[in-house]
């Protein structure tokens, strides 16, 4: 059903006008549509009406201003008392989401809808398709990724067999853009959970293959910070020594390779040099300080203060 507000009769409803008080700041000159629909909405909310025409009015106001969180809260409360089906509501939401991708309310509403209105597990596949469609327009959309993480947590998608769907999805996103940090974050979340929580045996068993995965990504684009950060995070979470990536890092930053000081070192990635700095500093080797100083003085001058601080405290 379309629930178009003009299809309903509101002649018995006395609109409640906007009351911003005397001489208000930032008063918006509303257009007639917004004035009319929000006047009716205030009246229906005041009387607590739960009906199809009330639902239609919320659709109208949301179309004009989807950030109006009060309307969303009212809508979810009255929804069970209207003729709208969950499927109909999800389809309507999708159209609103596509028109307003940066909105905070839409996906929060969608998660409320699934937990309140659907008994048992909803159609996860449909939700995943929805997420991917939203990411086509904006591959780093924060709300959409957060919603996917909510789905994972809420419906246990980090367990087999769902985890394979998640990993395949992340892999596709990374194939589109290996620098998509939102996708790297999702991969970490699915495989390793929250960084602050202790690692399980299962997570520790995943370390090796994930190190390989990150290395392959780095080989494609050594300047890409995301897989370097991912690599560090996997090592830390699983308590793996940084030593296992020493040779790999030296491939991209051969500053310690040669005794001959006249040879200009080849630094293909400042991230490699940074990781080597951490690796050596941890071992109390002076090479740690050397790496940090090289970053401060030559390879990453915008962060000179930071690298000098690291050199001082190493």
């Amino acid at each position, binding site marked *: 059903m379309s629930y178009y507000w003009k299809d309903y009769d509101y002649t018995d409803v006395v609109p409640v006008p906007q009351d911003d*008080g005397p001489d208000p*700041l930032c008063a918006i000159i509303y257009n007639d549509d917004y004035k009319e629909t929000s006047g009716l909405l205030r009246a229906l909310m005041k009387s607590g009406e739960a009906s199809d025409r009330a639902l239609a009015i919320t659709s109208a106001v949301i179309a004009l201003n989807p950030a*109006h969180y009060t309307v969303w809260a009212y809508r979810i409360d009255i929804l069970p008392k209207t003729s709208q089906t969950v499927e109909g509501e999800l389809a309507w939401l999708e159209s609103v989401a596509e028109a307003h991708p940066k909105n905070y309310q839409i996906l929060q509403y969608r998660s409320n809808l699934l937990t309140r209105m659907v008994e048992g597990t909803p159609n996860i596949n449909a939700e995943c398709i929805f997420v991917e469609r939203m990411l086509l327009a904006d591959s780093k959309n924060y709300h959409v990724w957060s919603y996917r993480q909510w789905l994972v947590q809420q419906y246990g998608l980090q367990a087999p067999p769902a985890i394979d769907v998640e990993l395949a999805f992340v892999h596709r996103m990374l194939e589109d853009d290996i620098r998509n940090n939102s996708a790297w974050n999702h991969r970490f979340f699915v495989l390793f959970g929250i960084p602050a929580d202790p690692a399980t045996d299962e997570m520790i068993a995943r370390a090796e293959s994930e190190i390989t995965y990150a290395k392959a990504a780095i080989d494609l684009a050594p300047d890409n910070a995301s897989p370097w950060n991912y690599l560090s995070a996997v090592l830390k979470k699983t308590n793996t020594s940084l030593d296992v990536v020493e040779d790999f890092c030296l491939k*991209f930053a051969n500053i310690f390779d040669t005794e001959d000081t006249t040879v200009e070192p080849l630094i293909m990635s400042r991230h490699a040099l940074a990781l080597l700095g951490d690796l050596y500093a941890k071992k109390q080797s002076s090479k740690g300080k050397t790496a940090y100083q090289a970053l401060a003085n030559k390879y990453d001058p915008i962060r000179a203060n930071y690298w000098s601080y690291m050199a001082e405290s190493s």
Partner: protein
Amino acid sequence: MSSTLETETSVLQREVEEICKERIKSMKGKEWRLYKTNHETFLLKGLGNLPPSFVALDASKPWLVYWCINSLALLDSTLINDTMIHRVKSTIAACVSEDGGVGGGNGHLAHLAPTYAAINALSIVEPRKNLWPIDKEKLYNWLMSRKTSYGGFSMHVNGEVDTRALYCALCVASLCDIITPELTSGCAEWLSRCQGFDGGIAGSPGNEPHGGYTFCALAALCILGEPRTMISKYLDVDKLLYWLAARQYEIEGGFSGRTNKLVDGCYSFWVGGCFPLLQTITEVPILSAYDLQKYIMTCSQVETGGLADKPGKRPDAYHTCYVLSGLSASIGNYSFSNGSWNSSKKSEIYGGIEPIHPVYNIPMKCYKALSIEAEVM
């Protein structure tokens, strides 16, 4: 440099670098100064009647007021006169909800974000807290009703739970002197779980680290206890510093909000504002203040008034507030001692900007005036 695979991210990044490079070059030799009068005109317009296209901000009225008033206060503007002060108070009063919090507009549900904006705006214009249109008891009960069993806060009934909500709740409680152990229990533990894989802090556990949420989490920890102790206890400081330092971009000089995202002027505060809080631990400056100021003065400032995300974008009240706050945070020298934050005096650099309070983001002098009045009361 070795060959690298070009992707959408790297192509967009290069484009923005080129635009900024051009802009910085075109400003070479020109003095960097704030176009104060033009910014005041822009902000006054922002406080006036707004065209129908602003309907998207109809549920953000206290925000609009705060962004403009905070910007004017940072510029030490004489436009904040008695009439303006009165209008700020009555505009906020119209947004106060029956349950004690503040909504985005008249008749809107109470929501933590506009409540935060409202209390901040009131703190700037009215040092006598007893004259605020706020019922502290009702407000406290409403704040408690927003708290979840696991230590986070939800923005409003049926609303999202995130680090922003928690920061807003604690700022409001702290400025209204209604902060209690019941309100704060579990908060720090929850925030600790919001730190993400690359070191920054996310909106909620498992989400991607983000500059805005990172500031909210850090500032919240600074309200929850002695800043140095709280930050070191609940966060991986090494990772966080690395992530924050990585947000500054070499060519642009400004900050991005996430790994592999573009520079945006508003992160001058959301990311830049983390450094004064972390200086309680590092003791030395970490960001390159010069480069950030270069971005602000050449790429973000619009000569005809207002400050913007990046060159070519239109200025707005939100960016004006957070770019100016970030500029202020990068100039003032901040320290925490004997239970309170201190800053250096007002700097006359670039034409003059007031130091902010690094936790609440209101001018330090307004905060100090509040404290004095509270003792007298």
